[in-house]
């Protein structure tokens, strides 16, 4: 079924740009609040967005985040031009991380990113090709019922 898109915006994310890390997600959170999305959904979307944004900044050269909001769902799709993930199943397990000491000094790289994205999404899809990049698709329903 086609759902009418009520709001859509793209955000460019630059790999390695730790100074601006989180700015796109803070903007997304404000946008969703302004759109009148329920607070619990806003929070889940903000966390999903931030984790995905940090992954691009930590591991990829660049990436694009697409936010779309319909009457019944918030969708966040993140495409990066990065190294890709060799073993997606392993990357999805809590505690597994390939973060550098610099990333850990900033408080990231506990191996919680992808599992946390999945936990906060109603639908989560990940496609990754080594040497090409990774695509994450996250959907959060706005009516409060998990899919």
């Amino acid at each position, binding site marked *: 079924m086609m759902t009418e898109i009520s709001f859509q915006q793209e955000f460019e994310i630059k790999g390695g740009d*730790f*100074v601006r890390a989180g700015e796109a997600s803070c903007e997304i*959170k404000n946008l969703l609040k302004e759109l009148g999305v329920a607070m619990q959904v806003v929070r889940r979307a903000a966390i999903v967005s931030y984790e995905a944004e940090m992954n691009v900044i930590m591991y990829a050269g660049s990436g694009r985040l697409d936010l779309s909001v319909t009457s019944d769902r918030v969708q966040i799709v993140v495409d990066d031009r990065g190294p890709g993930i060799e073993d997606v199943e392993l990357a999805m397990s809590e505690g597994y991380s390939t973060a550098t000491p610099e990333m850990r000094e*900033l*408080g990231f790289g506990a191996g*919680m990113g992808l599992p946390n994205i999945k936990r906060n999404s109603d639908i989560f899809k990940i496609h990754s090709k080594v040497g090409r990049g990774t695509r994450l698709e996250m959907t959060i329903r706005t009516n409060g019922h998990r899919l």
Partner: protein
Amino acid sequence: MLTLKEVQSLLSGELLTPGINLEKECSKVFASDMMSDVLAFIDPESVLVTGLITSHVVRTACLADVSAIILVQGKRPEPMVVDEARVRNLPIISTACSMFEVCARISRSHPEAGR
């Protein structure tokens, strides 16, 4: 239940973001330097106790609906970081106490705050 103002007093803390309302309840406390764990486990409206002073702490706190940041060991972030917190209406309290001492003092006055 303690208010943020009472927590500030309990810790002899300095409010680095003057003008932000501290008459809010401090219902839960989460202590960590690991922002990944904050994003994964913190309850909304919790107080975050940390020793990290980067802008990522402010952004993480904002995205995870944290009600206030308590910085331990007398740490003070760069003015730019404090400004960002002020813009986001997020109080930052700096205290000379260690992370353990902060948790111990709050826990003595409000045993239900931890998780």
